[in-house]
């Protein structure tokens, strides 16, 4: 078993001066080309990431001050409020008064003008004249838009989840590979590719005009729900498929009916997966503008949604929505120092909400993947 002395010696010599790994890649033109190409791919990847993050960062950077600088003390309970988040939009007046440049919202400007007029009248002078520049929606906040977006998302997701989960149960639990089922799957695939503006047109023609719902929450709910339905179905089916076959077989073997099996032994285990994947659908619903442009969104509305006389009015009223508000403030008013505040602020709040939803979905899903191992 003892190796010859010469072998031991040579091994010791090697230990002193380590020989090169014969399998290590040798430098050469091919090797250089390979690493160059790898770098090109790497740079392309990181360039995309950098673009996305730059857009995100620039909006956060310019929009965050709008929100943080809007805190204000109040006399009633929480004793603090945020004038940007919790007020309605107003027209901004910019004018010069006694050599000072002032910016005021609509209500503040009227109060100021009355006070100045009263002061002048008391001093026996003619009423002061103000030459103002006005910018619509550039003062005040975005509270009605936030409320409207939340209502739209909640309503449409309720409809989409009901329809979507039921369809997914059929497709994953009951359906066999028949022509009918293939047809349904084809329809779902194609529905996913329909442009959102076409959903808007459809909603306008069917709900707004044909059903006579006018521009209303209800029309927006159904339009958005139909748009997001393929996402919900695909996600739910995946979650249902992830539940092992043994769960169903065990239950059926014990004499449970198919429905009992689904209800007790499949759905509870699939539910977390269904919900987390559907959150991505929520992000899509919250982010779309085109479908609600003619079906649910108003440019401006003074009343808040719950300020209605009859319950039915609640469903048949239009609302303001964040994405549409961004469109309005970025296309209908000029870009300058006075309007920047509300433009970036709205974009920031909206992006923040959507990013929060998307990030929570991605994180939850990654966590879930690790938890259930069957």
């Amino acid at each position, binding site marked *: 078993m003892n190796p010859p002395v010469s072998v031991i010696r040579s091994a010791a010599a090697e230990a002193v001066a380590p020989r090169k790994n014969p399998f290590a890649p040798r430098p050469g033109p091919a090797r250089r080309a390979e690493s160059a190409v790898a770098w090109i791919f790497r740079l392309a990847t990181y360039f995309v990431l950098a673009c996305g993050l730059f857009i995100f960062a620039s909006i956060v950077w310019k929009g965050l001050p709008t929100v943080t600088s809007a805190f204000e003390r109040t006399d009633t309970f929480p004793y603090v409020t945020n004038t940007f988040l919790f007020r309605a939009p107003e027209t901004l007046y910019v004018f010069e008064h006694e050599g000072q440049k002032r910016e005021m919202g609509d209500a503040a400007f009227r109060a100021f003008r009355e006070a100045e007029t009263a002061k002048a009248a008391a001093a026996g002078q003619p009423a002061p004249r103000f030459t103002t520049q006005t910018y619509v929606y550039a003062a005040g906040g975005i509270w009605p838009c936030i409320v409207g977006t939340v209502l739209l998302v909640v309503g449409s997701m309720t409809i989409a989840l009901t329809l979507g989960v039921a369809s997914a149960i059929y497709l994953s639990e009951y359906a066999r590979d028949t022509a009918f089922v293939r047809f349904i799957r084809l329809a779902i695939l194609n529905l996913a590719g329909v442009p959102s503006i076409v959903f808007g047109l459809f909603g306008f023609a069917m709900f707004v005009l044909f059903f006579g719902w006018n521009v209303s929450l209800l029309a927006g709910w159904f339009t958005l729900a139909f748009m997001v339905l393929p996402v919900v179905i695909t996600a739910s089916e995946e979650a249902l498929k992830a539940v092992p076959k043994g769960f169903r077989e065990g239950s059926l073997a014990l004499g449970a009916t198919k429905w009992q099996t689904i209800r007790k032994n499949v759905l509870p285990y699939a539910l977390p997966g269904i919900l987390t994947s559907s959150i991505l659908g929520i*992000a899509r619903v919250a982010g779309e503008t085109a479908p609600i442009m003619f079906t649910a969104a108003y440019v401006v509305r003074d009343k808040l949604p719950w300020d209605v006389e009859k319950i039915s009015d609640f469903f048949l009223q239009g609302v303001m929505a964040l994405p549409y508000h961004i469109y309005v403030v970025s296309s209908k008013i000029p870009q300058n120092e006075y309007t920047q505040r509300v433009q970036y602020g709205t974009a920031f709040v909206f992006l923040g909400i959507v990013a929060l939803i998307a990030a929570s979905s991605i994180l939850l899903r990654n966590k879930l993947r690790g938890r259930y191992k069957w």
Partner: protein
Amino acid sequence: MSPAPSTPPATQADPAPAAAPAFAIRKARTRVLGLTLDECIQGFFGGNAFVAVIILALITLFLFREGADFFGQNRDNLTIYRQAGLEYVDLIRAQERDHTALTRYLSDVRLQTLRHHTEPRAGELRRDQARLTSRIAALRHASTPDPAALAEAESSLAETDAALSALLAEANAQLAAFDSFAERYSDAILPLRGLVSELGEVAVAIKERHENNLNFLQKRQQLLAAGRPEEAAAVQIVPIDFAAELAAITGAFPAYEESAAEVAKTLEQLVADALPAAPTPALSARLERFRQLTRDHLATYPATAEALRSWTPDRPVSFGESFTAFVFGRQWLTASFWQDWYGVLPLFTGSVLVASIALALAIPFGVGAAIYVNQLASPAEQRAIKPTIEFISAIPSVVLGFFGIAVLGEFLRMASGWDWLSWFPGFPFPERLNALTAGCLLGLIAVPTIFTLSEDAINNVPRAFKEASYALGATRLQTIVRIIVPAALSGIVSAVLLGLGRVIGETMVVLLCAGNRLTIPDFSAGLGVVTQPVHTMTGIIAQEMGEVVPGSIHYRALFVVGLLLFFIALGLNFLAQKIVRKYKISIG
């Protein structure tokens, strides 16, 4: 499916009654309409699944319902265009437009001649001007005032101004002959122009009366429907005798012939004898070309006269004409006092142009990132990159559009002015919002779609392919380029098609950033066409849908555009699925 005990099989003889097994189900199942509860539940779920089919059918139905009437209405629209003589006037107007294009050519030549006379001296003087102006501004705002230097700078600025204006005055004086020629040339068309505006007024008046009649007719019908026949009878409708009315227009043909002959004679004389001399061979060549163009223009006069002579208002507009006017129409012109045109071509080319820019950017980045993440990146990198790209796909398009208006458009315009980028076609460009701005942002929207689907496709390439390639001694690069990408190609192509579908259907970014100019982009600019403002199919729907009257031809036209979009999206989807299915690699 055990039969209920109450209905024993009648044909077969019952075995011994005591032999019924202990576990036989004795309870009768609840049945609703002959179905067991489980079957009802299955039916309920199946019905829900069928909703997707119903929605797709409803979308098709409603788009057709609202859009189908468009072609009939457009036919009426084109019929009245012909009957009221607008078409006749437009034939003459085309001639006038041709001439205007020629005068534009001429003024371009003049500009170049002027430049030839004044450059490079004028350029130097302008640079001096700019330098001195900024120096004066700097001196004025300096913390330590230097009146002597300021006065000096101001006086030299005044000198430069004077020198520049003297130079320009001299050059303009040299061009006096050219100017008088240009003036005579552009005045030559006046007889025709007068005729066009005269006849145009007559035609518009006829059309207006026709439209009023239609309104009255509608009013009468409304009144009749409301049960007020006497009021309905009181609505006066004076029928239009188109033939008699048109006599005023077609009767002007001799006048047209006379003016056209006069114009032709003047123009021919002008280009034959009075063509001014040009200082350089290049400019002479251009003037020579101008002479040729004018003769070409004059050569069309007989054809126009023939077209006018044989023109008849009675020729019916066929349904096909109404269809081609939409599909191949080169103008989308609405709410015009003259004639509304609904041609989808400017919108379609705009959409295609923006989408191609987006794909040109998104394919290399999306596919490159997919190859990198799947084949080259470390696991830690993979875990970081994939969610980030998913996160990018969650950025709402309206926010991207806002970013384009607020930041990217301005940045690109600024970058287009940089000297080291001047090689790029179309740079520099004046408009902040154009196809390039929208295309860049749409590229960012398409990247996540292309990335995710291509990554899936690459991931599905069997491991054995890669291992076999390595075993044969191929390098990593060779394996990727020769084995993995070709094996995943069908998936990558379908990813690109789905990305294209996403980009064509995207609304908010193009509405906000594409510039919304309703003309076909000028493809003669080569690749520089990418920096022109365009309008798109999605953009026009979003922009105009809120303002149109439901049921009007404009409203229906928008629905037809929507229908076109819908079928493009379905077609792309179908193609993508077909490619995946057809070229699926078999794993042997």
